[in-house]
């Protein structure tokens, strides 16, 4: 993968938390450092290690939806620096 930025500059993705999940985690968004390309599943697992609500809300059994750059995604969906990754509960519109 091409790395245009100097090593001292960390690559980041924007993480977004919505609806009930935003309240449970106490966060609406954050800049999240990544080392090159990763996946939705890998980010979720790393967030879980923060413990507390992060560990319980993002646990494997919890119903959770994820979107990468505004498209619904799965655990295998790749994530690259500059992407926006949103975590949210199953939707309830209509």
């Amino acid at each position, binding site marked *: 993968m091409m790395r245009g930025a100097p090593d001292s500059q960390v690559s980041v993705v924007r993480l*977004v938390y*919505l*609806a*009930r999940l935003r309240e449970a985690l106490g966060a609406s968004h954050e800049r999240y450092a990544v080392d090159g390309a990763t996946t939705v599943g890998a980010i979720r697992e790393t967030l879980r290690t923060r413990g507390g609500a992060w560990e319980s809300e993002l646990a494997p059994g919890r*119903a959770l939806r994820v*979107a990468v750059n*505004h*498209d*619904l995604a799965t655990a295998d969906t790749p994530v690259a620096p500059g992407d926006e990754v*949103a975590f*949210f*509960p*199953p*939707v*309830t*519109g*209509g």
Partner: protein
Amino acid sequence: MSVRVQTGPFDAQAEADALRAGDLEVGAVVTFVGTVRDLNDGDAVATLELEHYPGMTEKALTTIVDEARARFDVRGVRVIHRVGLLAPGDPIVLVVVTGRHRGDAFDACRFVMDYLKTRAPFWKRERTPEGERWVEARAADDEAAERWR
């Protein structure tokens, strides 16, 4: 625009008229209006607040409309979804489909609603006498969307 997200009310008849206007191949206009109920899971609902994910919402609705147009023989599709604070009885979502014949127009309208219910990023928060709570997703909505696979 075939897709809109707005806080204010909509005029279903005006939207249907506008979608049909000038298209003399249209033989069927199907209009669906979803409204806020005053009871959910046995509790009285005083108000409903709708949150969405700006940016993704429009994209998701557009994808659903595009898919409906590809799957069914229809002439026009329009979707309007409201966000913000709503009360029981308020219209919350509008789907209008125009087509040459009623069969595909009915199916496309149902398809759009079934997909919207499971793929468009909206969340309802209810205020009831017991306090505020996020509305839980329903398995029946997933099953309705699965029927179109």
